């Protein structure tokens, strides 16, 4: 019988990605409800030692396919490796991060093993079904974030889902935990390498991961132009935060797309989110509504963003933000001199 929750913990350049740790944290809760175990799976080359770290984040078992054919991400060798893991271990649930790797690999594997796959989930829970017993209920935004849908996969195993990075919480790292790594051997042939990677170019500019920021000062169309972000950057610096953006500014070319918050961008949940000149379209709100404290500044007193804000300011952010930056500078200077 299919059992246990398998988390495909993504690695890049031999380092485990944060999303895998988040998924293991979430999986420990689901596993408790199911009375099953959490198994971390790492695919790569020379990753066995790094894979052991998954024990520290809550995995009960760790499985690897460690092979030079998996040194760099390629769809077919990874799909073959994971299919072999699924065939051998017969998991009940398989979870992936909804990254550009997870969303490439998961559908290919789901197709191959003929099971269901739910994309980009933001909520997972276990429900009791009259007909088939305990099931994974996979909740995700649909229709551009306008509605939420809960999806079931009743008759096929494993139940598979990709989960948005930044939505689930990782457990606190427990350095005392460790364990053995189970290696699964897969034979790779030249035919598996059905594409050729001519070049791999890593981003030279240090990419700021806005999902990691504790404070985000975010700009929308109301900041007036690309120079508006300079103003926000200065304010964010005083708060020890980063800048982010609505889709409108990315589409207008004012800022890079990696800073976009929302349905088609990133989901963030900082301690403080300051929305400047952002109207609050539902697609944007979908990406920031879990923020602890939301402050919105908008000229339009009926802007939808005020509906999800703890504090709303009706006014021009081009006037208010520079004044706020000054006030913060003064406050920080006083704090330092004390």
């Amino acid at each position, binding site marked *: 019988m299919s059992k246990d929750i398998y988390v495909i913990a993504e690695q890049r350049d031999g380092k485990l990605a944060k999303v895998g740790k988040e998924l293991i944290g979430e999986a420990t809760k689901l596993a408790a409800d199911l009375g099953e175990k959490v198994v971390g799976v790492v695919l790569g080359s020379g990753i066995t030692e790094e894979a052991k770290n998954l024990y520290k984040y809550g995995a009960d078992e760790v499985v690897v396919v460690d092979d030079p054919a998996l040194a760099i991400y390629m769809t077919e060798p990874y799909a073959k490796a994971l299919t072999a893991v699924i065939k051998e271990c017969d998991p009940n649930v398989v979870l992936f991060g909804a990254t550009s790797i997870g969303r490439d690999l998961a559908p*290919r594997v789901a197709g191959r093993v*003929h099971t269901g796959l739910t994309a980009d989930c933001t909520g997972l829970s276990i429900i009791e079904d009259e007909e088939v017993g305990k099931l994974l209920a996979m909740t995700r935004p649909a229709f551009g974030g306008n509605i939420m849908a809960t999806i079931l996969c009743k008759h096929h195993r494993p139940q598979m889902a990709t989960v948005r990075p930044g939505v689930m919480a990782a457990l606190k790292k427990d350095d005392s935990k460790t364990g053995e790594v189970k290696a699964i051997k897969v034979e790779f042939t030249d035919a598996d390498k059905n594409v050729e*990677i*001519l070049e*791999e170019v890593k981003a030279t500019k240090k990419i700021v991961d806005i999902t990691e920021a504790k404070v985000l000062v975010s700009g929308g169309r109301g900041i007036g132009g690309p120079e508006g972000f300079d103003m926000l950057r200065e304010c964010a610096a005083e708060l020890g935060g980063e800048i982010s953006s609505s889709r409108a500014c990315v589409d207008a070319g004012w800022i890079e797309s990696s800073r976009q918050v929302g349905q088609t961008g990133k989901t963030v949940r900082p301690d403080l989110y300051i929305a400047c000149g952002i109207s609050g379209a539902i697609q944007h709100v979908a990406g920031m509504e879990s923020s602890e404290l939301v402050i919105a500044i908008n000229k339009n007193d009926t802007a939808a963003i005020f509906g999800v804000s703890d504090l709303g300011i009706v006014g021009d952010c081009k006037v208010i933000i520079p004044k706020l930056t000054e006030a913060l500078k003064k406050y920080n200077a006083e704090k330092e001199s004390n």
Partner: protein
Amino acid sequence: MKIVVCIKQVPDTTEVKLDPKTNTLIRDGVPSIINPDDKAGIEAALQLKEQTGGTVTVVCMGPPQADVALREALAMGCDDAILLSDRAFGGSDTFATATIIAAGLKTLDFDVIITGRQAIDGDTAQVGPQIAEQLHIPQVSYAEDIKVDGKALIVKRQFEDRYHMIKVQTPCLITALSELAKPRYMTVSGIVDAYEKEVKVLGFEDLKNNFDPANIGLKGSPTNVYKSFTKQAKGAGTVLNVTADEAVQAIMDKLVEKHII
């Protein structure tokens, strides 16, 4: 090169609003459009054709109204259009949808299949890779750029923190990011021609030998929707309409109160 583009007709989700009283979607008057990533795929296909010669066939699965989306693709310059439409196809999840589209594609001769990365109504990004799996051909997803290299293609494949230049032999499937190509406008003569052309319709009877009928439609879908709901809106807090200096003071007070500073 024989190029096939798969498109989806979607509601323009940016135009969808919630009824504040009932908290339900207002669908009336929401226009149907060609999914943006798919439209970039059409443009990329037309550019490939301009470089290599050949044909561009556009394929869409959907209800009879999706004819409009196919006509738009013809007006942009695609050569042929096929609509995969049948009541039996309704309720398909991504697995079943990929099964049907792959069955339709098996009736064609192709070198390259281009799909959009994802549709704005479902946002799953699953159907492209699942079609490739069913057809047993390589896929390159998240394509930002495509160049022709003899019988192969060189694709710039985007990741969050890097890109790969990938050489892939044909036949293959590529999923297009909207950055891949800026769609051209329809021309007046193109629109006239588009309505003179035939859109071939393939239904269950035409495709039944190309798929297992147990794998399509609502019943053939491994996943099903258990429930759908609108999100609980986060309650609105205080909204102040005061002078800039008072506003800044209010923000500072809040930041101190919440221990942010």
